[in-house]
């Protein structure tokens, strides 16, 4: 097993179909940029993880400058966006979001239809693992994990990396999205 495949929790092994690991951070950025309707999904651990912007919420706020990107906060996290002056972040419970992403008839937060790519960051490891398992098994949706450890049930995962490298990687991806804006 390569170091990149190190999981966030030992027991949460993947099944026969496991995530691809991005060969480079640029590939990750490009894949998100190429999406027609990308959804950026931010979880409850976002305030605990430092980034160059401050924390993951600050990075997500910067990424929101790319108007193609829809941002949704799960848990009670939308309150953090609001505290930071951002009123247009969407809010939905993670489990409910998983259900809606599995529904081809869902119109999305803007009424324009289902998303084609969901990008997850800032989660308790096992909860992201499970929601991505549901999406892997029951949808054709492209799922991307930007968390710091390998997420086997995503379609694409950044894979494990030391914290300083991850901070650089996330910054590069967010900057790339911002540039496109």
């Amino acid at each position: 097993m390569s170091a990149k495949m190190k999981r966030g929790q030992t027991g949460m092994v993947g099944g026969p179909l496991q995530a691809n690991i991005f060969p480079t951070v640029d590939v990750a950025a490009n894949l998100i940029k190429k999406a027609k309707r990308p959804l950026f999904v931010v979880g409850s651990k976002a305030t605990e993880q430092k980034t160059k912007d401050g924390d993951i919420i600050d990075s997500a706020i910067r990424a929101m400058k790319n108007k193609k990107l829809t941002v949704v906060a799960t848990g009670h996290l939308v309150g953090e966006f609001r505290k930071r002056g951002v009123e247009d972040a969407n809010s939905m419970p993670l489990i409910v979001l998983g259900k809606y992403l599995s529904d081809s008839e869902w119109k999305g937060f803007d009424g324009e239809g289902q998303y084609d790519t969901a990008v997850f960051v800032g989660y308790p490891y096992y909860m992201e693992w499970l929601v991505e398992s549901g999406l892997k098994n029951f949808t054709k949706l492209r799922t991307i994990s930007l968390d710091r450890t390998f997420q086997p049930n995503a379609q694409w995962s950044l894979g494990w990396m030391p914290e300083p490298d991850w901070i650089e990687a996330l910054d590069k991806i967010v900057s790339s999205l911002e540039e496109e804006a």
Partner: protein
Amino acid sequence: MSKKDLNIKFDELSSALGTFKGLQISIGKIIDEEWEEPMGPTPFPSVGTLRDWDRKLLERYKPYYMPICDLCCLCTFGKCDLTGDKKGACGLTQAAQQSRVVLISCCIGASTHCAHARHMLDHLLEEYGRDTELDVALNTNVEAPHIRLVCGYKPKTIGDLEEALDYVETQIVQLVASAHTGQEGDAIDFESKAFHAGMLDHVAMEVADISQISTVGMPKGSSEAGMTTMGFGAIDTSKTVIMCIGHNVLPSVDIIDYLMEHDLFEKVEIGGLCCTALDNSRYDNRAKIMGPISWQIRYVRSGIPDVVVIDEQCLRTDIVDEAAKIGAPVIATSEKSMMGLPDRTHDDADEIVADLVSGRQKGVLIIEPRKVGEVVVKTALAVSPKRTEYKNPSIKSLLEGLDRCRGCAECIAACPNNLPVMEAVKAAENGDLKQLERLQPLCVGCGRCESACPEHLPLLSYMYAASSESCKGECYNVRVGSGAITDVEIREVGKGIVFGEIPGIVALVGCANYPNGGSEVAMIAEEFLKRRFIVLATGCSAMDLASLVDEEGQNLYDRYPAVFDAGGLLNIGSCVSNAHITGATIKIANIFAKRPLRGNYEEIADYVYNRVGAVGISWGAMSQKASSIASGCWRLGIPVIVGPHGSKYRRNLLGAKDKDEDWVTIDARTGQDMYVGPTPEHLFYSAETVEEAIVMTAKLSMRPNDTTKGRAVKLSHYIDLSKKYYGGLPDDLELFVRREADLPFTMKAEMLEHLKAKGWVEDKIGMPDPTLVDRMVRRRE
């Protein structure tokens, strides 16, 4: 009362019809009772009897599956890869496999309570006799709502409970059989069967608890439930200490009896972990609650217990080895949990004591409760003076090996909550114990970090060492489990609950697999107590909510009245006492609304679902029992919220609030269909954070039957909590406001503006006499 299996045999019978030789007549059961209520449509329902009702719920709350394993390895065709749209060798789909595992989990849970109940009942029948009258709660006629509802009979004696248990056992066998390879193949039918298992579970729990309440002298209502204490500081370590772990009170009763008969309470402290602790304190409130199940290793490593007694359920299966490290013998008392120990049930008590005290045997199995009482107390008294080296371990000895940490972080990856164990150990190595101390209340005590450590460092001991002084100061009041809600209480609050003027019942239930420690349970409880919900608690949650103490040193049990009324907080009791929570909702339908109970499951569930704003929260749900308890709630139409670890139950039951067609209900007054909004929105829901759970609880307390005043009360809490935790108004408010009068008066102007922007139209949402059951329509227009 019904009697089973009447058989009449005639060698020769002459009658007007002729002469019959060798005539035998068998009648399954005869009814011999005075209950005037006519029998309902579904007494003793079989696996498929309530399938239509289940499907009504499951059509509205479709399962959302999140496989925790993509494979099936239950037969030798396997492993089968079920990923995506693949099928197994037997033809099973991924969705069906997930629901099959849900069913298996619920069957394990229901079997566990049923086996517990059978053990309890068999013993009590022998000890007290079949004709011992059921005496469950003060001023109460509806003594067994689940048995009346599901089985259709009214038990009068503890002997009468056998029939209900026979039924449950028979049905569980049918359910387990359906999970065999090549049996059930449809996901929704598996789900319906899981509901059936849950319903059976609540019957079994009821049998277990009402039989023990009626015989051993536990409180029969809140007015009889005093206080006991919980925590390390509650245990007088200058005495000999007996620690009982598990869920079945029987062995502990005989230990307590032995202590009383020999006047030994001055010398011996008896404490317990998990539900045994709760039930011990119901029996005698001198018995202390040591803490929730997650504190097992912590207590053992503290060296406090002189003897460890285990009964059943949620035990650490390595408890014998753990106890041996501190020189404490283990007495196993249940055939379900023998732990490899020699069976000494039939040996002389003093010989057993001698073998344990000498260390010739590190533990024994004794099935006979009276002998348990004698052996445990004698052993504890004899062992205690020999254990001084273990009793108060030095911090230094507990911290041994710190410098061997390799910094590999395996402990963090093994931890269910990814706690920063390694960093805390490294800090401790440099003399800073604060980080370890901070981990202690967050740790669920599973010990996986130690198991993963390549150096086998005793990481839980390190956490205890760092916090041992603060642990010793932990002493909280806990109200003793009060058991069933009395009929009088139901009469007094029924109207307020059904019309929504009491905003809801919040039941904090079960295990201690918390994402951020037990204090979050207290946080939930306090939020709803302040808002005058009725808050009920059982199991580990009933203990953990005691740990939130205000500036004056008072906790929630000190500050809130022990009443089944708005703003009241009740500890109902142990796991099996959960039947009284669902039982209370059934009794509201029966006592307040006069709905017939007897074998009338669908109508009562329909009533509870549409009218009783009860929400179950199992914030640390861990076990299969938790899944079957929840499943029994779902069939009754009671929503359940679990914490993030509950997502590992692999499926949720979620409504789609944007699909108006899903929320159409029949108006029983006219027979017409009516849109009622998504109330309640979900039936089984895993929350990511406690704040999310709190807001969702307020939302899920709404019901179609709420009066205008009731809906206004509920909306005010939903709005207020959304503002508090989400920093703004709910984004779905328009789905819950039926007419302007529903809006809380003080918020009306602000809300109307918000609703107008959302395109809200008054009266789109109806206010019917709601039912999902067609036969409940009184008159068709």
